[in-house]
């Protein structure tokens, strides 16, 4: 069966949406009437990489305000699929609903967090594409890279022919690339967590999408217990003004208000200092000095920024954290990555903010800047 | 004896031009017969260029009209006018490398087919024009490498290639050396005499005008103050009045 390559003229887009809704309705009906025995999932053959439910019309175009995704952070995503039927219907963090005929066998992950998650869910063998800056777990290096910082390499994606693509929201994966993949007929789930509960919801969402809902549930539950542990450990401790430094070149970068990183800092027992606007990630030094953080956490320690370098920055001497030597590095990949190790990250962050808290440092966390002990002025 | 009344090739009636409130030309009238060669002279600021622009249609006069072959200028369509009247500018600026032949070929624009371009007859006329002017040997040279004199000859060839019966020239001998000045003047006389082309040339050099033209129009302060042979127009009193110089400088003899 050859896919019609001529794009559908605008007039039929409306019909496409209608047909799509019919398909979803049919899937729901099927789900309700199917027998209890699970149907075997069939791997798509190379010649038909496009799902029949979505061809030939492209995915319906969404006309929504773009920057604020309609996330459902604290409630479980609605689902119509029961574990025994193969059809999976999910709604992503931007409100787009897709339906998969069964657990996907060829998944492309376009964020480091979802790549880690695939392995954590035990579905690492079904990961067939990643970004070239995914770095965990070590075995991920054998998965071919299909995206760089410049964007998604569309030819490689088509060549692989995925049956599910996991993308990052809020511009992490460019909207144009997401649209292109959907136009080509690939189901794309866009994930964006504004806060820590949102990360847990996304973990469950992905677990459901790949057919590993129970594995996802246990990951989420264990992370939740780590969160509870941290919450208990910092309860009663005064929350210092905390600046989490994400980067310093060419400008100073910190968490935006209402962002996941800000939420992490708050949960870790810090009073998060943020930029002025959810879409702004840079913070002028003057503003930082005025905010006067009591603790500075170096998320860019992996790139060589260590406490003594920070203490030596001109104009920073007046900052309380610098005066008291409360500048501490963390392994940013576990703190800022909204993936399965976020619980470890939260513990590491809490220990960086409250070194005397009753917590055990996560064993896998990389320790930076240990070669040069920070001298207190 | 009755003179046959022929329509003058070019006629100007009561032309008045103002730039804003400043008067530039007032009540200028004259007629040029077919095949006649006339030089328009006068000091700087007399209005010669404005008059020329009015005749070519670039400037609309406040009053009066211009007639080409008896027809009002305003009634002649621009493309048709280009086939009747050719204009030789005094200076040309060429922005891109261009061969002489290509420059001369521009003269065929009013005649060529809009889409197909130059046809054999056009090529023939281009070659003829270059031969007439005597620049056939230069045809492949880049225009910008020529001397000013040679360039002016090329522009003249362009105007000739236009096959117009009326040729208007705006100070065609500025910057030219004597040899080329004479060459251009002789060509103009030849075109009028042999081919019956009507010529009206704005000249700044009265000596040249006097030598090569049988009829002069003297413009001063926007008015036509004299119209006739050089002897009639360039009298000692007009020279000193209009030009403010010792007439002997023009008429010969050492200043007394």
């Amino acid at each position, binding site marked *: 069966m050859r896919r019609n390559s001529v794009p559908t003229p605008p007039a039929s887009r409306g019909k496409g949406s209608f047909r799509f809704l019919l398909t979803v309705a049919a899937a729901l009906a099927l789900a309700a009437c199917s027998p209890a025995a699970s149907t075997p999932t069939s791997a798509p053959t190379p010649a038909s990489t496009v799902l029949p439910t979505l061809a030939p019309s492209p995915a319906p175009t969404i006309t929504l305000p773009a920057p*604020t995704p309609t996330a459902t952070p604290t409630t479980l995503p609605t689902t119509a699929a029961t574990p025994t039927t193969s059809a999976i219907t999910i709604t992503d963090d931007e409100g787009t609903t897709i339906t998969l005929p069964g657990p996907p066998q060829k998944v492309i992950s376009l964020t480091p967090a979802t790549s880690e998650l695939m392995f954590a869910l035990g579905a690492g063998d079904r990961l067939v594409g990643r970004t070239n800056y995914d770095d965990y777990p070590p075995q991920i290096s054998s998965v071919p890279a299909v995206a760089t910082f410049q964007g998604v390499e569309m030819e490689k994606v088509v060549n692989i022919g995925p049956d599910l693509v996991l993308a990052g929201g809020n*511009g992490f994966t460019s909207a144009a690339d997401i649209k292109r993949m959907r136009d080509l007929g690939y189901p794309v789930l866009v994930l964006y967590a504004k806060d820590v509960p949102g990360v847990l919801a996304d973990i469950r969402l992905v677990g459901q999408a790949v057919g590993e809902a129970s594995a996802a549930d246990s990951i989420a539950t264990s992370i939740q217990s780590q969160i509870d542990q941290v919450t208990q450990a910092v309860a009663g401790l005064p929350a210092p003004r905390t600046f989490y430094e994400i980067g310093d070149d060419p400008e100073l970068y910190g968490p935006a208000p209402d962002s996941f990183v800000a939420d992490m800092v708050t949960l870790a027992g810090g009073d998060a200092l943020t930029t002025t606007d959810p879409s702004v990630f840079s913070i002028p030094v003057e503003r930082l000095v005025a905010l006067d953080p009591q603790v500075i956490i170096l998320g860019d320690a992996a790139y060589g920024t260590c406490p003594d370098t920070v203490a030596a920055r001109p104009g920073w001497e007046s900052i309380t954290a610098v005066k008291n030597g409360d500048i501490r590095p963390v392994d940013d990949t576990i703190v800022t990555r909204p993936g399965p190790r976020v619980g470890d990250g939260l513990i590491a962050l809490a220990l960086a903010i409250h070194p005397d808290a009753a917590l055990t440092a996560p064993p896998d966390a990389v320790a930076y800047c240990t070669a040069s002990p920070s001298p207190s002025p | 004896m009755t003179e046959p009344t022929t329509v003058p090739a070019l006629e100007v009636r009561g032309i008045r031009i103002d730039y804003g409130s400043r008067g530039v030309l007032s009540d200028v009238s004259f007629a040029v017969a077919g095949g006649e060669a006339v030089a328009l002279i006068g000091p700087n600021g007399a209005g010669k260029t404005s008059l020329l622009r009015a005749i070519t249609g670039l400037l609309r006069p406040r009053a009066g009209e211009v007639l080409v072959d008896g027809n009002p200028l305003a009634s002649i369509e*621009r493309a048709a006018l280009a086939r009747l009247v050719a204009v030789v500018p005094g200076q040309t600026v060429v922005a891109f490398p261009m061969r002489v032949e290509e420059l001369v070929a521009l003269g065929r624009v009013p005649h060529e087919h809009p889409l197909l371009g130059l046809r054999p007859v056009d090529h023939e006329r281009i070659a003829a024009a270059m031969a007439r002017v005597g620049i056939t040997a230069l045809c492949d040279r880049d225009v910008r490498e020529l001397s000013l004199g040679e360039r002016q000859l090329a522009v003249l060839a362009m105007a000739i290639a236009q096959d117009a019966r009326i040729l208007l020239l705006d100070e065609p001998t500025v910057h030219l050396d004597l040899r080329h000045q004479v060459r251009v003047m002789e060509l103009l006389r030849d075109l009028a005499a042999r081919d019956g082309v009507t010529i009206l040339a704005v000249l700044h050099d009265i000596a040249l005008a006097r030598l090569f033209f049988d009829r002069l129009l003297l413009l001063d302060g926007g008015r036509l103050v004299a119209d006739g042979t050089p002897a009639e127009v360039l009298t000692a009193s007009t020279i000193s009045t209009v030009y403010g110089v010792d007439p002997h400088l023009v008429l010969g003899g050492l200043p007394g």
Partner: protein
Amino acid sequence: MSTRVAAAPVPATRSGLLESARRRPLALAILGLVLVAATLVLGVALGNVSIPITDTVAMLAHRLLGWPVHVTWPQSSETIVFELRLPRVLTAMAVGVALSLAGATYQGLLRNPLADPYVLGTASGAALGAAVALLIPVQLAFLGLGLLQVLAFAGALGAVAVVYRVSRVGGQGSMTAVLLTGYAVGSLLAAGLAMTMYLSGNNLRQIFFYLLGSFAQASWPQLLVALPLICLGSVVIVSRARSLNAMLLGEQTAAHLGLDVRRERLILLGAATLITAASVAVSGLIGFVGLVVPHLVRLVVGPNARTLLPLSAIYGAVFLALADLLARMPGELPVGVVTAIIGAPFFLYLLRRYHAGYEL
């Protein structure tokens, strides 16, 4: 005393090859078309994923020419060739045609060898439109185009309209006045762009990619919208070669040669701006093509618009399609960088070899 106006050193005599090339514009055109076909095949044969050339040719023959060929390739290859590569190459060619023709037209209208399609503020207007689109939190899907394309298009047209209008204040606007006004308006728009970029924060990256120009997002819907505009404008320009020729010695001479200068100026400006705006809307700002291709063609065949325009279009298509091919081979380089790297040295060489002086 005879004085020289142009201080040009005596150039090298043109080589025999170049001379015979000049005399045979038709041969050059045919060669160009052959190169277009070859570039098309090359463009769809090469990419990030290697597809055997035999498969590619067979696919093309099968789909485009209708030959009965046994299908031996996977569906994904066909999708890559026909959904990703083919629209991309065709878009690059269309934009190459548009920018080359627009550049030749602006150079002829303004009689300025340094003119390119963006000289009247098109670039700044389009960039500002794009930046504003990224600032507005509304998504639009209209015939496969997003808000960005629509506003970039509007910005480009709007900028030139403003320039034309403003330059005519005070009577007849000479083309020099238009050029200078274009400079001024362009600067103003660039300031507006800087402000918008400052306000946009996160979307800065997207604006940069747009400013650098790229065919990475080329798709059939976009091409099918841009192509009619580019075709319309191109046909208008090429059919008005005579007007451009008449303008070679200036607008006064053009009027004396029978041209309705104001009307022709408006039509040519409008058409050139239309195709530039369409190009900028689909591919961002790609520099150098509109400046270099007409010059290169002119150096070979001379300024006669009847040969200059069609050949500029053909070779512009080849040039940009090849540049895009080079841009996507190693990674995704901005195609504007590639056009500059190829175009500049070659152009400099030809200038030194044949002509050094340009008088304005």
